[in-house]
């Protein structure tokens, strides 16, 4: 055990962890909007919109995240037309490519979580709203969405942790996140075990914090 290396690499890995957290939070926020949008599309009676939303979630849940990042980072740059538009400003940055891939990926999973949450809302809640003469728009915003969010908290907590692990793939497109820096230190010092303990410890700590925040929210918003 090389304790000196562990102590020396700790600050480097810790500052890399902030990049991991940044990637995670930005993609989760965008992903939540995508997920909500597609969950609503899934519940739509229009068969075309419905199938489109289903196809989206099937595509992103059936392929590895690594393929999605590579298609966006390496693949899209190949389209000549894209290089002339303003989108190129975003797509030439690996950071944004990673975020787009993560957001689309977590959006697909989130849409499934929210969809099942919407479907398990008891019809009585909606009927109660209707009999009080509340418009269906208000019922949606004030009754269905809050209940759905509460219902999906446990599953969404798992999704956040899975996504946090997913951000490690950003290191494959040259971003120096926690895994990227860990790999760099491993390949320069050939001390995989020590670096794994420190980097893995930081990841576990983040998992632990996220897990407890979700547990707290679950308790706070439980209505039983």
């Amino acid at each position, binding site marked *: 055990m090389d304790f000196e290396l562990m102590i020396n690499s700790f600050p480097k890995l810790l500052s890399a962890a902030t990049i991991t957290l940044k990637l995670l939070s930005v993609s989760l926020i965008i992903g939540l909007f995508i997920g909500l949008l597609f969950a609503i599309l899934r519940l739509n009676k229009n068969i075309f919109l419905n199938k489109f939303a289903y196809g989206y979630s*099937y*595509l992103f849940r*059936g*392929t*590895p*995240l*690594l*393929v*999605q990042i*590579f*298609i966006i980072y*390496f*693949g*899209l740059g*190949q*389209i000549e037309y894209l290089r002339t538009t303003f989108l190129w400003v975003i797509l030439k940055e690996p950071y944004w490519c990673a975020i787009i891939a993560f957001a689309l990926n977590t959006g697909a999973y989130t849409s499934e979580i929210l969809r099942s949450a919407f479907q398990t809302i008891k019809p009585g809640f909606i009927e109660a709203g209707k009999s009080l003469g509340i418009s269906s728009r208000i019922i949606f915003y004030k009754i269905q969405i809050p209940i759905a969010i509460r219902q999906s908290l446990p599953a969404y907590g798992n999704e956040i*942790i899975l996504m*946090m*692990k*997913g*951000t*490690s*793939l950003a*290191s*494959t497109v040259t971003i120096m996140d926690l*895994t990227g820096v*860990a*790999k760099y230190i*491993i*390949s320069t010092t*050939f001390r*995989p*075990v020590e670096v*794994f303990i420190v*980097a*893995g410890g930081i*990841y*576990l700590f983040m*998992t*632990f914090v996220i897990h407890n925040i979700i547990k707290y929210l679950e308790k706070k918003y439980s209505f039983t």
Partner: protein
Amino acid sequence: MELLAFGDTGWGDELFYATLMTIAVAITAMFIGFFFALIFTPLKLSKNKFLNLIANSYTTVIRGVPELLVIYLFFFGGSAAIMFVASIFGYGEYIEINAFMTGAFSIGIISGAYSTEVFRGAIQSIDKGQFEAANVLGLNKFGKFFKIILPQTLRLAIPNLSNVWQITLKDTSLISVTGLVEIMRQSYVAAGSTRDPLFFYSCAAVLYLLLTFLSMKLINRLEVRYSRGY
């Protein structure tokens, strides 16, 4: 389409063999995972606090740390560990372990953590009466496990194991970083030499979709088989 021709002119046969490699790694990893689950599930269910702690730290660490980091640990650490053991026996040469074994083993350890949780949940949800009934019938330990507990566990575990299989299958894409020629690595090579990454990574996506789709079909049939009588 020319790019996908079989033979020397296209990448069709290369991608086909790469797909077989992905399937081989995923299945090997899944079985290594079952092996780990077989060890750790009893530890998880045991009444001994210390054994519980061992099993819990295995599943917590593996499920809380990115797969890529675990793969790097075994990729860089695997041959070092074996060389260390070999050096004790006076063998000082460089040893490189097979990329297939490194990959299958690291994905297997990850898959094992998920399988352990699945089996634990399934065994715990079996009615207590079933254990008691088996005791009353005078079955010995093996009979009890293989004839009463295991069939019921499998029925409950198959839907969740199918999720583990999907995760394992998709995780195999990560071992392309070790240089093993599976779908992802082959697409990377093909994309590099033809300068057509969009096409080849899309091919990879389609191949993975095909694999997940076909395996879902197979698992559904398995599920029906094990649910006979319910």
